[in-house]
C-alpha cells in the first residue's frame, strides 16, 4: 500500500517547518515554552540584522545608564560644589548620552518592526503552503467556517503581541542587567538591596502567571463555545425564525454569554494583578533605597547624589517587569494561537508518493512541460508523465475503499471505461458515486485493488499529473473573489484573454458576461452571490473547457438550475464532453439516456452495467429506479 511515509516526504515537510526543529505530531498538551521557541525560530533568518539590533539596544541601554549617573554627579559635584562649569559640562554630556541612547532606540525599533513583520509573514506563508498540502480528508472533516475563524483569530493574536513592540522587552531585560552591574560598581551596599527585590518579584510574577494562564485557558474555552453557538444560530437564522425559536436561542446565548463574562473577569483580574504588584514592588525598592541610603548617608557612607542615581535606577529597574505584565494577556493569547498554528503546520501532508515520483511532485509544472512529447522514465530517472500521453482509458480493478478502516463504502468496484466514452454513475443517495470520483482524483487512496489510467496504476503517477489529466465540474460550483476572466483562466493559467473568451463562448456564458457591469473584468464578490446558480455552473464549465482535460468528471447539478439555463448547460456540456472520457454522476435523464454506459451503483457495489435500452429491458434495479420517476403519471 502507498500509505507508508517515504523519507522524501519528510524532507518536504521539514522544509515547510523551516527551522522549527523536529516534525512533531499533533499534541493536545499546551506547552507555551515550545511555541515560544518555535516562534523565535522564525526570527532566525534575520540573524545578522538582529545582531545589529542587539548591539544597538546594548548601546542604548548603556547610554541610558549613563544619564542617571551624570545626573547624580551633577547634583553632588557640580551643584553641591557650586561648580557652574562642571554643571554645564554635565548637562551637555547628559544631552549627548540621552540623544544617542534614544537615537539607537529609534533605529533598533524601526529595524525590528521590519524584521518582526517579515517573520510573521513567513509564518503565515508556511501555514498557507502547508494547508495546500493537507489531504482532502482534512478539508472533508474540518468545516471551512470553523477552521477559518480559528486561523484568522490565531494569526491576529500573534500579530497583536508582536506589534506591541517586543524590542522594548529585550531592551528592558538588557537595561535590567546593566542597571544591576552599574549599581554594584557604584555602591555595593545599595546594590545588595536589589538582590532582595529580585526574588520577591520573581515569586509574585510566577504566582500571578500561573493563575492567569489557567484563567485564560478557561476563558478561551468559554469563548469558543459562545462563538460556536453564535455561528450556528446566525447561519441558521432563517430556520430559527421560521420555527419561532428565537427566544430559546436568546436564552442559550445569554447563559453562555454570562459564563464568558465570569471567566473574563476571573482571567483578567489575575492578569491585571501583576501591574499593581510590580508597581508596589518598585515603590518598595525606592523606599528601601531611600531609607537605607538615608541611613548610610548619615554615616557618610554614600552621597546624596548617589541616592538620587540609585532611585533613578530603581525606577528603570522595574520598568521591564511592568511592560511584561502589560503585555501579558496578548503574549498568552499569541502563544495559544501559535500553538494551534503549529498544530496545523505539523499535520501530515497528503500521502507520500513513491520516492522516485518526488521530483516530479515538487515541480510538476516544469516536469510536464519539459517532457511534453516523449517520456516514460527509465529505472533510474524519475518517471515523468505528460498530459498528452493520456488517451483516457480508465479501469477500476477490484477497488475497495472506506473512509474509516473496516467500513468499506466501495466494494470490489470493477469496471473498464474506454477512452472517449461517456459513463453515467447512477444510484440512490449515499451509494458511493462521489466517492468513486474522489478515488479517481486521488483525493483518497484506495485500500485494495487498482485504478489504471491507460493501463498504468495511478499510484505510480504523480498526483498532480493525475489531477491535471482530469477536469472536474462540481455540483457546488466554486468561484473566487476575482474577475470573471481570472475565474475562467483558473482552468489554464497560461491561457490568453482570447482563449478565455473563446471558452466562455463555448460554454454559452459569453452573452451573459457581457451584460455584467464591467464585462469580463467584473469582480465576483465573495462566493459569487451576485450570480445565479446556473450562471456559476456555466462559468465552471468554461473553466473546464479551457483546461482541456483527457478525462472529465461531472457531478451534475440540476437541483437549482432553471430550465433555460439548463438547456444551455446541456449544450455546453455536450461540447465539453466531446472526445473525452466522461464520468458523470447523473441526475438528468438526458445524460443517463445518452450515456454509452450506465453503471448502476447501490451500497458501494456495481449492481448493473449496460446502456439505457439494455438496462430497461433487464427490468432490474435500473428499471425500478427509472420507472419510479414517472409513477402515477400516465399520459
Amino acid at each position, binding site marked *: 500500500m502507498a500509505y507508508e511515509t517515504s523519507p522524501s516526504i519528510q524532507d518536504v515537510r521539514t522544509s515547510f517547518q523551516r527551522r522549527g526543529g523536529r516534525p512533531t505530531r499533533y499534541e493536545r498538551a499546551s506547552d507555551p515554552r515550545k511555541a515560544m521557541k518555535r516562534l523565535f525560530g522564525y526570527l532566525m533568518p534575520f540573524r545578522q540584522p538582529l545582531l545589529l539590533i542587539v548591539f544597538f539596544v546594548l548601546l542604548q541601554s548603556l547610554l541610558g545608564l549613563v544619564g542617571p549617573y551624570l545626573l547624580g554627579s551633577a547634583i553632588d559635584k557640580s551643584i553641591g560644589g557650586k561648580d557652574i562649569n562642571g554643571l554645564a559640562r554635565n548637562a551637555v554630556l547628559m544631552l549627548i548620552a540621552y540623544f544617542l541612547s534614544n537615537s539607537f532606540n529609534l533605529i533598533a525599533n524601526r529595524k525590528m518592526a521590519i524584521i518582526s513583520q517579515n517573520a510573521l509573514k513567513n509564518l503565515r506563508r508556511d501555514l498557507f503552503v502547508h*494547508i495546500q498540502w493537507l489531504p482532502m480528508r482534512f478539508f472533508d472533516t474540518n468545516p471551512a467556517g470553523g477552521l477559518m475563524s480559528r486561523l484568522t483569530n490565531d494569526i491576529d493574536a500573534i500579530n497583536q503581541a508582536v*506589534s506591541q513592540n517586543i524590542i522594548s522587552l529585550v531592551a528592558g531585560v538588557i537595561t535590567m542587567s546593566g542597571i544591576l552591574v552599574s549599581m554594584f560598581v557604584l555602591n555595593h551596599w545599595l546594590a545588595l538591596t536589589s538582590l532582595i527585590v529580585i526574588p520577591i518579584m520573581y515569586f509574585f510574577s510566577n504566582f500571578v502567571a500561573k493563575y492567569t494562564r489557567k484563567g485564560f485557558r478557561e476563558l478561551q474555552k468559554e469563548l469558543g463555545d459562545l462563538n460556536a453557538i453564535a455561528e450556528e444560530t446566525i447561519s441558521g437564522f432563517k430556520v430559527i425564525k421560521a420555527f419561532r425559536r428565537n427566544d430559546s436561542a436568546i436564552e442559550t*446565548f445569554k447563559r453562555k454569554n454570562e459564563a464568558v463574562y465570569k471567566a473574563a473577569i476571573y482571567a483578567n483580574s489575575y492578569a491585571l494583578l501583576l501591574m499593581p504588584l510590580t508597581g508596589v514592588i518598585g515603590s518598595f525598592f525606592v523606599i528601601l533605597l531611600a531609607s537605607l541610603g538615608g541611613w548610610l548617608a548619615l554615616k557618610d557612607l554614600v552621597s546624596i547624589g548617589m541616592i538620587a542615581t540609585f532611585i533613578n535606577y530603581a525606577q528603570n529597574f522595574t520598568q521591564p517587569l511592568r511592560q511584561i505584565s502589560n503585555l501579558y494577556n496578548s503574549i498568552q493569547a499569541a502563544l495559544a494561537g501559535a500553538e494551534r498554528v503549529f498544530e496545523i503546520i505539523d499535520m501530515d501532508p497528503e500521502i507520500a508518493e513513491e520516492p522516485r515520483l518526488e521530483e516530479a511532485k515538487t515541480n510538476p509544472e516544469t516536469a510536464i512541460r519539459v517532457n511534453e512529447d516523449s517520456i516514460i522514465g527509465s529505472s533510474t530517472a524519475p518517471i515523468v508523465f505528460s498530459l498528452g500521453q493520456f488517451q483516457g482509458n480508465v479501469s477500476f480493478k477490484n477497488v475497495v475503499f472506506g473512509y474509516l478502516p473496516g467500513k468499506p463504502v466501495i466494494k470490489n468496484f470493477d469496471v473498464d471505461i474506454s477512452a472517449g466514452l461517456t459513463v453515467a454513475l447512477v444510484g440512490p443517495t449515499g451509494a458511493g458515486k462521489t466517492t468513486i470520483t474522489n478515488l479517481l482524483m486521488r483525493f483518497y487512496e484506495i485500500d485494495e485493488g487498482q485504478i489504471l489510467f491507460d493501463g498504468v496504476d495511478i499510484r505510480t503517477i504523480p498526483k498532480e499529473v493525475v489531477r491535471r489529466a482530469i477536469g472536474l465540474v462540481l455540483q457546488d460550483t466554486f468561484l473566487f473573489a476575482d474577475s470573471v476572466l481570472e475565474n475562467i483562466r483558473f482552468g489554464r493559467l497560461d491561457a490568453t484573454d482570447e482563449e478565455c473568451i473563446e471558452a466562455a463562448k463555448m460554454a454559452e456564458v459569453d452573452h451573459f458576461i457581457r451584460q455584467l457591469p464591467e464585462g469580463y473584468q467584473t469582480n465576483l464578490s465573495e462566493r459569487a452571490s451576485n450570480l445565479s446558480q446556473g450562471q456559476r455552473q456555466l462559468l465552471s464549465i468554461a473553466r473546464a473547457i479551457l483546461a482541456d482535460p483527457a478525462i472529465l468528471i461531472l457531478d451534475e447539478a440540476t437541483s437549482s438550475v432553471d430550465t433555460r439555463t439548463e438547456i444551455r448547460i446541456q449544450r455546453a456540456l455536450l461540447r465539453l464532453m466531446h472526445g473525452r472520457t466522461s464520468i458523470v454522476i447523473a441526475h438528468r435523464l438526458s445524460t443517463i439516456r445518452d450515456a454509452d454506459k450506465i453503471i448502476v451503483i447501490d451500497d458501494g457495489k456495481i449492481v448493473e452495467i449496460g446502456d439505457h435500452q439494455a438496462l430497461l429491458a433487464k427490468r432490474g434495479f435500473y428499471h425500478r429506479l427509472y420507472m419510479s420517476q414517472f409513477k402515477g403519471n400516465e399520459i
Partner: protein
Amino acid sequence: MNEFGKLLRFARPYRKTALFSFVALVIVVTCDLAVPRLVGHIIDQGIRQRDLHTVLSTSALMLGISALSALAAVLNSVYSIRVGEGIARDLRESIFIKIQNFSYGNVDQFSTAKLMVRLTSDTAAVQRLFQMSLRLGSRAPLSMIGSIALMFVTSKTLALTMMPIFIVGAVVIFFFSTKMEPFFRTVQQRLDRLNTVLQENIAGARLIKAFVRGKYETERFETANDNLAQENVKVMRIMASMSPILTMLINIGIIVVVWLGGLQSIQGDLTLGQIVAFTNYLMATLHPLISMTQLSNNWANGLASSKRIAEVLDAEPEVAELPNASSLPQTIRGEVEFDHVYFHYNGDTALKVLEDICTRAEARKVTAVLGATGSGKSSLVNLIPRFYDARSGKVNIDSNDVRLLRISSILEHIAIVPQETVLFSGTVRDNIRYGKPDASDEEVLAAAVAAHANDFIMDMPEHYETHIEERGANLSGGQKQRIAIARALITKPSILILDDATSAIDVETETKIHAAIAKATMGITLIMVAQRISTVLNADKIIVLDEGRIVAEGTHRELLKKSPIYKEIYDSQLGAGVRHGL
C-alpha cells in the same frame, strides 16, 4: 465619534463602577506622586539635617502610601475589568437579540460572516477601548496634571520652563494618534484580502487540488501577504518611533531641570532635594505617556468597531408588526391568496422580483410553483409567513391580510422547509423535535417515517441519538433534507411550504417522500416550489413563474396543452425521455 456616543449608552449601567475605578486611579496617581516628594523630604530634612528619625519615619510613611497605592491599583483594575467586560457582555447580548429580531432582509444585507465579526472581534475592540481608557488612558493625563501641580508647588519658575515640553509632548501624541487612523484602516483592508484568499483555499480545496493550482494560489496568497506585511511595517515604524521621541522629550526636561535648577541651587534658591524631586516628577510622567501611545491603536480600532456595531444596532427590522396586530384563530382553513402582489428586494429596486401576482393556493390542496432560478418562486412563498413583506398588493391567509397579523401567530400555522438545509448541533432527535420542543418520541418517529428518514436514521450508529456534526457533516445532502422535512412535519401545520426541499434527493426517493408527505399531510395546504418537473406532476394546481410574473397556471394536463413554456420545461426534463422509455 457619533457612533461611539451611541455606544456610551451601554456604559451607562456601569457609571458607578467606572467612577469607582476612576477614584481608585486618582488615589494611585496621588500616591505615586507623593513618593518623589517624600524622597525629597528624606534627602532635605533627613539626610542633610542628619536626622535619622525623619529618614525612618518618612520611609515608613512611604511604605504605607505605596501599599495604599497598590490596593487602589488593584481596585482600579478590577473595576475597569468589570466595566469593560460588562459592556462587552451587554453589547454581545444586544447585538444577538437584535439579530434575532431581524427580518430575512436584514440578514441578507449583513451576511453571517459579518454579523459574527460584529459579535466577536468588534465587541472585543470596544471592550479593550473602555478598559484601557479607564486604566492607562486616564492615568497619563492624571499623573501629568498631578506632576505639573507638584512642580508648581516645588518651584514655580522651574515648573514654567517645563510647560513647552509638555505642550510638545501633547502635540506629538495628538499628531500621531490622528495620523494613524487611515493607516490602521489600510491594514484592515489588506488583512481582509488575505483572509479572503485563505478562506477560498479552505472552502475551495477540492477544486484547487483538482486543477493542481497550489502554486498559483500560493502566489496569490504571497501577494496579499506581502501587501499586508508592507503596510504593517509602515504602521509599526511610526509606532516604534513614538517611545524614543517621548523619552527624549522627558530627558530634555531633566537636563533643563538640572541646568536651571542647578544654577538656582548654586544661588541658594532651590534645595538639592527639590531638584531630585523634580526629576522624579518628570520620570513619573514618562511611562504613562508612553503607554498612552499604545492606546492610540486601541482607540482607532475601537472607534472603527463601534461604527460597525452601531450599524447593526441601528438597523430597523424590515418587517415590522403593527402595534394593534391581530392573531389568526386557533384553527384555520389554510387558503392563501395573492392579490396584485409586487415585490423587490431592498436596495435593488431596479430588479422587480415579483410583478402583479394574482393567484390562490386553495385550502387543503397541493399547489406547486414551478419556474427558473430567479423567477421569484422562493420570494413568492417567503411572503406568506412575512419573512419579507410585499411592496404593494396583499397576501391573505383565509382572507386576513398578513400585514395586519402578528408574525408569530402566522408561523403557528405554517411550517416551511427552506431551500438551504440547516441542522443544529445535537442529536437527530433534537433536530426533528426542533419544530416542536415538547413532541413525544412517537411523534418524532411518525414525522421521520413520513419524511422517509427513519430507514437511514436506524442505519446510523446510535439511531435517533446519533450526534449531528457541525453543519451536518456526517449526513448527505439528501439525508439532511429529509430530517428538515421531518422537522417541519412534526409541527402539524395547516400550511406546509416545501421550498425546493427535495433537490438533493434522487428522484426515486423523492417520489417516495412525496407519497409519504401526501399521506401524512392529508387535509393541509401544501405549497411546493420546484425546479424538477417530476416533483410537481401530481399537484392540484401548478403555477408557472417566469421573470416574476405568472405565465400559466392549471393542472399538469391543462398546462401541457395550453402553456408553451410549461411544455418546453417538460420536454427538456422528461418529455423525450418518457416517450423514449415507454
